[in-house]
């Protein structure tokens, strides 16, 4: 069973399927290979729960839009975390009732599973709400940084105390609640482009919780799966942090959110912006030689990936070279833009990664920025006070003309102003990405 799980580790597309099959085998194996008397009622309950879960999971996963994927992953992650936490809770109850003293190792596994699982659960739910837009303002309690760290220490000490003393039922529930609260506190202040990192981190948390569960039962499938996700998730988190040039500790301890308020006030940019009409943009693009498109979350929200592909083909027909500049953290997840553009059949070679495209910007006639903001903000390079200072960006400001398609002048997800918009070479092209681009295509078609 453990080997089957490994199949999923391959990047091969079928790996996913193999993984699913492996999982099914693992589940069925657990049910049928169990020795001892089990009442039919419990079997009924298990199968009922599985059936219900399958139906709900299947339908939500099938129905949801491609752009909502990050939210969904976060949601499912939370479910896994909750599952792990509940297992630990039951196991704890079990130990309490049976009266047999648990070994320290078992206790550690139970408590750790409980804490990590519930933090992951509540954290994921908050992440889900935030991505969903239900809660989009980072909430900042006064000196929350301190508060959070103290809280974390408190939960950890509480957990340690439980391990040593054995505690009682009341305390177990209390710890459960405390861990849940910590998950909320932990995720709440984190805004900005950090969300993907948080999800990835919580993902590896859940993996760890699962691994503790595996340790508890001496179940190798759970252990392997959990640790695999734990280590893979942690590494993935680190890779993402590197893409944003921020140490992991910075993200974990939420230093990001704290700095934002002050810096945003200080970095207010003076200047005027130009606005471009549809025909201005169309003319500009029609007579340029090379166009680079910088897609961002706005593209995903507007579901404009097919329209942009149409624009790309139209321009290519007219001898304009079109490329996409993909920032590693554009959108809400790494690779979000790739998935989206792949969906609309954009050729793989057209997607250029940041390091490869940056030297090309000075030779680019027009940069079309669609719903991206922070990833092209020059403040990351020249304003040390900016919260995103140090993050590698797409150097769109080097291009000859810059067109920015946005719905409004509002600040980006990181909540900061973008001085690129005030660049003399830049013009704003307001409107919903899909609508604006459709108009642009129509306008281009009338020109020959």
């Amino acid at each position, binding site marked *: 069973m453990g080997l089957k799980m*490994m199949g*999923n580790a391959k*990047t091969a*597309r079928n790996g*996913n*399927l193999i*993984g699913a099959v492996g*999982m099914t085998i693992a589940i069925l194996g*657990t*049910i049928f290979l*169990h020795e001892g008397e*089990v009442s039919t009622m*419990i079997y009924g*309950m298990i199968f009922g*729960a*599985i059936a*219900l*879960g399958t139906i709900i*999971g299947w339908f939500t*996963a*099938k129905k949801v839009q*491609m752009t909502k*994927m990050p939210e969904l*992953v976060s*949601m*499912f992650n939370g*479910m896994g975390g909750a*599952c*792990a936490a*509940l*297992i630990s*809770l*039951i196991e704890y*109850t079990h130990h309490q009732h049976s009266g047999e003293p648990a070994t*320290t190792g078992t206790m550690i596994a139970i408590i750790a599973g409980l804490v990590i699982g519930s933090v992951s659960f509540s954290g994921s739910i908050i992440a889900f709400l935030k991505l969903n837009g239900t809660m989009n303002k980072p909430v900042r309690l006064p000196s929350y940084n301190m508060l959070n760290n103290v809280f974390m220490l408190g939960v950890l000490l509480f957990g340690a105390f439980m391990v040593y003393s054995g505690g009682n039922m009341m305390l177990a529930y209390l710890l459960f609640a405390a861990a849940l609260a910590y998950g909320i506190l932990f995720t709440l202040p984190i805004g900005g482009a950090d969300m993907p990192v948080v999800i990835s981190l919580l*993902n590896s948390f*859940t993996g760890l*919780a699962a691994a503790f569960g*595996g340790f508890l039962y001496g*179940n190798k*499938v*759970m*252990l*392997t799966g*959990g*640790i*695999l*996700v*734990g*280590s*893979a*998730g942690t590494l*993935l988190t680190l*890779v*993402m942090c590197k*893409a944003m040039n921020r140490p992991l500790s910075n993200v974990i301890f939420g230093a990001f959110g704290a700095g934002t308020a002050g810096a945003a006030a200080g970095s207010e940019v003076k200047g005027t912006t130009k606005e471009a009409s549809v025909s201005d943009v169309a003319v500009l693009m029609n007579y340029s030689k090379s166009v680079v498109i910088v897609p961002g979350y706005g593209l995903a929200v507007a579901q404009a990936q097919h329209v942009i592909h149409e624009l790309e083909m139209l321009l290519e027909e007219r001898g304009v070279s079109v490329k996409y500049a993909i920032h590693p953290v554009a959108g809400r*997840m790494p690779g*979000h833009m790739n*998935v989206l553009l*792949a969906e609309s059949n954009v050729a793989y070679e057209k997607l250029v990664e940041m390091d490869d495209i940056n030297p090309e910007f000075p030779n680019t006639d027009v940069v079309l920025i669609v719903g991206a903001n922070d990833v092209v903000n020059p403040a990351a390079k020249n304003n040390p006070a900016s919260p995103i200072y140090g993050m590698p960006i797409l150097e769109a400001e080097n291009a000859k003309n810059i067109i920015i398609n946005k719905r409004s002048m509002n600040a980006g997800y990181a909540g900061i102003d973008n001085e690129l918009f005030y660049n003399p070479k830049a013009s704003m092209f307001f409107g919903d990405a899909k609508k604006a681009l459709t108009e642009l295509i129509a306008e281009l078609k009338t020109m020959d």
Partner: protein
Amino acid sequence: MEQILSFFNDNRDMIYFIILSVFVGVEVIGGVPTVLHTPLMSGANAIHGVVIVGAIYVMLNVNPDDTVALILGCLAVLLGTLNVVGGFVVTDRMLEMFKKKK
């Protein structure tokens, strides 16, 4: 100290397993391009759904008279299934998009 040592001895297999798994996990991520990180994350998400195995195990061992445990267990199985099924279906949908082009 002795306690810790004996703990390690008792669980030596497990600890080897953990270390091996860590290496496999690191190895896996190392070879994946940025492009595939989203599906990978989603895939990893589905994998840690193995907690469901634990949930089922718990359910099988629970005392049928213990209503609280039964309800919690049932909930755990339900949530675990959501995680597994949803995770795999979502990953599949994402990968499908990459497949189309080839």
